[in-house]
């Protein structure tokens, strides 16, 4: 069984992005990068499958400049068997997906795991595009994955909100994008880390991939729709005649509107229950 995990190097989510004081330009040398946390979860899941079914091959795949080899090495330290980097800049999700799809289609695989989204752009589209282009099944935002290599099926659990879970069975090959709560990624052991430092990374030039693009949209990718302007919010201005403490109170209470007073029912539990019931009946809520 072969599992391909698509990973991405993103700017560190907790780091000040190092804006130049003069020009307001992001200084690349001040950037600190990290492996997209969702992808780390996907990698961990792939390795757990590998541990469960020996003989499974885990391949880490990324599209990015040479600095993104860092995250490839990290995922190899986590346990990936081989690493592939497509040299290029991730511009738009569709281009990325097309390039990755070409690499994956060339080598073939049973399971593709992606993070649900990258935490820099929060797009969450590459996975879906990838499955479409490869023409395989996909399930997004999964929380559990049970693979049956003999029957070539997978049973996945995904969240559908409000605490409900959905159980889906599908045949392989398939693509899954994973949710963050799926597992707790491990910390690489030193032997793995040392091995990863010596391991070879397969580098593929993006230009060398002969990719057939949909002529309608072209390689230029997707039109970006700006989100609508947020609705202006009314900011309450207190009367300047009032005393400072009074103004503070008004600002803090958000506009001086008297907070809705609740009724507090006190007494023994039985009596309190009766009183609550009568209120509910009075309000025609039961």
């Amino acid at each position, binding site marked *: 069984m072969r599992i391909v995990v698509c990973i991405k190097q993103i700017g560190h989510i907790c*780091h000040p992005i*190092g804006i130049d004081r003069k020009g307001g330009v992001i200084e690349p040398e001040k950037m600190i*990068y990290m492996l997209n946390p969702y992808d780390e979860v996907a990698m961990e899941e792939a390795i757990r499958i590998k541990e469960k079914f020996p003989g499974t091959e885990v391949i880490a795949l990324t599209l990015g400049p040479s600095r993104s080899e860092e995250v490839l090495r990290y995922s190899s330290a986590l346990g990936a068997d081989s690493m592939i980097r497509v040299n290029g800049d991730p511009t738009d999700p569709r281009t990325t997906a097309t390039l990755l799809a070409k690499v994956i289609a060339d080598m073939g695989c049973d399971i593709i795991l992606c993070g649900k989204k990258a935490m820099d752009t929060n797009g969450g589209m590459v996975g879906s595009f990838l499955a479409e282009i490869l023409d395989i099944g996909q399930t997004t935002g999964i929380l559990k994955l049970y693979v049956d290599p003999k029957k070539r099926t997978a049973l996945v659990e995904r969240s559908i909100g409000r605490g409900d879970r959905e159980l889906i069975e599908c045949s392989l090959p398939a693509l899954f994008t994973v949710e963050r709560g799926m597992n707790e990624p491990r*910390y690489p*052991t*030193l*032997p793995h880390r*040392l091995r990863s430092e010596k391991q070879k990374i397969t580098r593929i030039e993006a230009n060398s991939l002969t990719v057939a693009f949909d002529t309608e949209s072209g390689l230029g990718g997707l039109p970006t729709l700006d989100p609508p302007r947020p609705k202006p919010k009314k900011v309450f201005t207190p009367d300047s005649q009032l005393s400072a403490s009074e103004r503070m109170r008004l600002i803090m209470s958000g506009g001086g509107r008297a907070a809705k007073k609740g009724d507090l029912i006190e007494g023994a539990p039985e009596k309190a229950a009766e009183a609550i019931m009568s209120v509910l009946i009075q309000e025609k809520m039961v």
Partner: protein
Amino acid sequence: MLSRLDLLFIVASLVLMATGFARRHKMWRLGDPAGDITIRSSKGWRRLILSIFRPRRFTDNLYENIAHLFIFWGFIIPLAIVLISQFRPILPAWAGHSISFLLDLIGLLAIAGTVMLLAKKFLRGNMPAGRRSIPLWILLAILITGFIAEGLRLSITADGPGNAHLLFSPIGFALSKLLPESPLFFDILIRLHFYLVLFFIAYMPFSVMRHAWASLFGLYHQENSREAAIRPIALEGDYFGTGAVEDFSRIQLMDSDACMSCGRCDENCPAHISGKPLRPRGVINEIGRQMEAAFQKNGAGGKQETGLLNTAGRIGQEDIWSCTTCLACVNICPIFARHVTDIVGLRRYAVLMKSQFPSEYKQLFKHMETFGDTFGIGSCMREEWTSGLNPARVYEDNEVDFLFWVGCSGALYEDRTRAKTLAAATILKRAGVSFGILGKEEACCGDPARRLGNEYLFQRLANRNIETLKSRGIKKIITSCPHCFHVLRNEYHQFGGDFEVIHLTQLLKDLFKEGRLTITSPSRSLLTYHDPCYLGRYNGIYDQPRELLGLLLESNVREMAACGNNSFCCGAGGGAFWCGKTTGRRIEEIRIEQAIATGAEGLVTACPFCEILFESAVRQMGADQSFKVVDIVQLVLQLTESN
């Protein structure tokens, strides 16, 4: 006179003892010779002999130490006298008399010592595994039978002429009055006494009395802090840390035999006192048990892994992670066992091989790896504290005498710690010290990574820092963080970074002495001083901060009961600062209670981590109105004025 049978018994007992000890030596050889310590033999002998005559920290455990002193010399001296007397040396009467008086006195003291130890065990209910007190009972029996035999001998010979010599054996003389004149009874008792001694000698390697032999090696191989620094491991191959008996050094295995289970390490361990599962003695004992098990399994050859941390082992996962590496156990241990080295080795195995450690540390490791600091903030923020002061940056080719190593807590943790760094820099400027900072080029010194067993991460950071320091031509470093201080001073030389490192308190004291700083008026507050472990026990700096405080304060420092090398940890060391959760009580709260008990109005410390934890503890305990926590640097800033 000895009969042939006696000689046979003597030989048998000596052979038994020798084979027993040879077996223990074979067990120690299970250990990894590569991890051994090399000490110049002259130094080793000097340390060994000195520690026999001047036991370590005698007054800190007066009761046990006196008892041990009595027993030790009460065994050695009579044995020596009896051996020599076999050759029937011709002595003048006065020498014979004084020797016999000495023997009586020593015997009496030895009984006192034995009874003292037995009484302590009974009173404390502290009799782990019962068997440990057997040698004491044998010893007591030897001494009592010896006296009774002497009394019998004297009662038989007393009637002869010239009774003056009897007065030089007062106890024997007193007993002779009570005992019958029975040569048979005398014969039985002297034999009993003799065979008990032989049994005791033969029994030594098979009981805790083996410590008498093994601890000689421990005393020979004792180390000072620079030598005792954690040793680096080569980052090659596919096995790291100590996960099995064979991975300990031979000296470390020997420690477990030298251990008498006196329990002083447990009594002084802040983790143990605060109710955490760690028992330093338990770690040492468990290594000994595993060593015996491994030895029985495969003799003295062939490596067979005995998981020390697995479920079969008795060192639990939580145990090794609750150690704060404060060195209290190592420092009190009379035989210089290396508890912290053992624990760090076990941690190394857990982190580097098994990737098993409290999940909080994963974030810490990742922060140190990606950001180069322990808080995940980033090097571009390392100069934020300088606001307005504008210290020289070394990377801008400024020639400076000292490098001011700021450290993660000083540069990044929060406004309060940054204010302290600013205070330190302001004082240095006032005193006209030429100093510079590394600023954005500085990275974490790696201390938490090393204590937590992540040697890989530590070496990465250490090599990076050493390279920076060398390329900037740094020779002298001052730092206010004792952790950075220890690592830069005692551990970077392992990777080729030899710098002269001074702690800020040392420098400040000198600046006052030279008159480059003066005090406007000394503070009237009553303060107590907390010795940070990494300044005190690790580096022996106890006096300089006190001298500095002596200049700053009107009254003397109110010392806590646990001060100096007996200081009680704040609970931050060994990476514990980054692990929020805790079992039992919080260590820093116990320390604050000790501080409040002195009647002082506040506590001064010289470590940023101690200060952070104490401050929060004081707030937690609701004592922040009546008790304040101050850093020594801030105190200096308040009390000095620019010249």
